[in-house]
């Protein structure tokens, strides 16, 4: 039952070093407070134990959105809306900007952070599919030091990641191919951005020089497996294949039947989810194909 927030200790450090010191001192008995849009709901619903909250929003280096050579580095506490509005992100990774624009309502988007979205590790996390196909990595910092983990290896199970007494401080998205193109589709019950997706699909594709075949295709799916996943069977099938409707359809079918492991829940049945994977992946590839015939990515 929903209730008032329970009691907890509240910390708000100003530097990364202070933050890590608290993480170490509390030895795992803490919850990171970034946007709070998932955490505070969990606490009101009495899900999990949260004896201490560590508010990381006052650490400036965790908030930055900056370019580094061709890549973009996004701090963990950058909000969904701030990232979606960033000129840098919109120019280099319009798919990501689009996905985060529709992560939730305006109010949620002004608070929800990319770090929180990834660390919360919902199978339906709206930020994950785009970042997966863009080849993103996350920087985890802790007492032992720092490590980069490719996002492909970051999710373990529903609401569980590889984080081990660490803090996710940054997401790095490497420069894409100059003629690469990305599309993100989310299917919800209503038409509202705040709808938790029934299925989502991100496709990032690079055509060959003649734009006749797919040189490289990456496909990621949300809400159809215990974690956000890459649809590797579908990717394998499409690599090097002609850019046409038949291949797009096949990619969809394989993603649906071999990659996706959907369940039935309050929003939809497994069968419908599986079918929608097919539809969304196919449409994403067709959309990219259409764009390739026109100008560069818009």
């Amino acid at each position: 039952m929903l209730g008032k927030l329970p009691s907890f200790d509240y910390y708000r450090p100003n530097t990364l070093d202070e933050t890590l010191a608290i993480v170490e001192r509390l030895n795992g008995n803490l919850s990171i407070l970034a946007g709070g849009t998932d955490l505070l709901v969990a606490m009101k619903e009495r899900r999990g134990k949260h004896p201490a909250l560590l508010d990381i929003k006052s650490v400036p280096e965790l908030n930055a959105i900056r370019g580094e050579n061709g890549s973009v580095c996004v701090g963990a506490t950058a909000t969904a809306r701030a990232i979606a509005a960033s000129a840098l992100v919109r120019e280099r990774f319009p798919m990501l900007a689009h996905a985060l624009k529709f992560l939730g309502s305006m109010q949620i988007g002004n608070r929800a952070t990319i770090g929180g979205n990834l660390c919360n590790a919902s199978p339906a996390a709206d930020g994950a599919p785009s970042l997966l196909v863009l080849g993103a990595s996350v920087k985890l910092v802790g007492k032992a030091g720092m490590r980069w983990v490719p996002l492909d290896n970051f999710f373990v199970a529903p609401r569980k990641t590889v984080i081990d007494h660490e803090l996710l401080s940054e997401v790095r998205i490497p420069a894409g191919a100059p003629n690469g193109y990305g599309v993100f589709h989310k299917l919800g019950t209503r038409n509202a951005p705040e709808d938790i997706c029934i299925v989502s699909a991100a496709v990032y594709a690079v055509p060959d020089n003649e734009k006749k075949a797919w040189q490289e295709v990456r496909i990621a799916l949300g809400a159809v497996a215990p974690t956000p996943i890459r649809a590797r069977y579908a990717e394998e099938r499409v690599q090097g294949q002609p850019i046409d409707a038949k291949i797009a359809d096949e990619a969809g079918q394989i993603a649906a039947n071999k990659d996706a492991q959907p369940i039935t829940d309050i929003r939809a049945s497994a069968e419908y989810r599986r079918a929608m994977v097919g539809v969304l992946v196919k449409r994403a590839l067709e959309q990219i194909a259409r764009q390739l015939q026109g100008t560069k990515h818009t």
Partner: protein
Amino acid sequence: MSRSRKLRVIVNGQKVNVAVSPSETLAEFLRTRLGLAGTKEGCDTGDCGACTVILNGKAVNSCLVLAVETEGGHVTTIEGLSSDGELHPLQQAFIDNGSVQCGFCTPGMIMGAKALLDENPNPSQEEIRLGLAGNLCRCTGYVSIIQAVTAAAKQLRGGK
């Protein structure tokens, strides 16, 4: 009981300096601590927008913000919109367009609209809908609300 913390924040232009419990949400703080009951609580989970206030220039669901998180910042609530008894164009437009029925969604809706117009003074109909998608209304069917926001936006732009 959480240890209380000193909180300094500017609310509707006024400096506030009080001790609060970390477990207090911004919505609770505004309503019960400061007596600003205009901000409403409709769902507790950030799904309805009735508790929308503007924090550091951005619309947020105050039921999902801790009061202590506003330290050093500034908050505007519905009570801070009118000045000297004169209604903000949004407030007047809501009255003139019949956009208020039971009124429970109204403060959050107006604050959401204010934040939207602050960022985007000339929003399209689509942008208004997307911007206020997180503000639920069960009474009006939204049409008069969109009309009011459109009218207020035009007035704020000087009638263009």
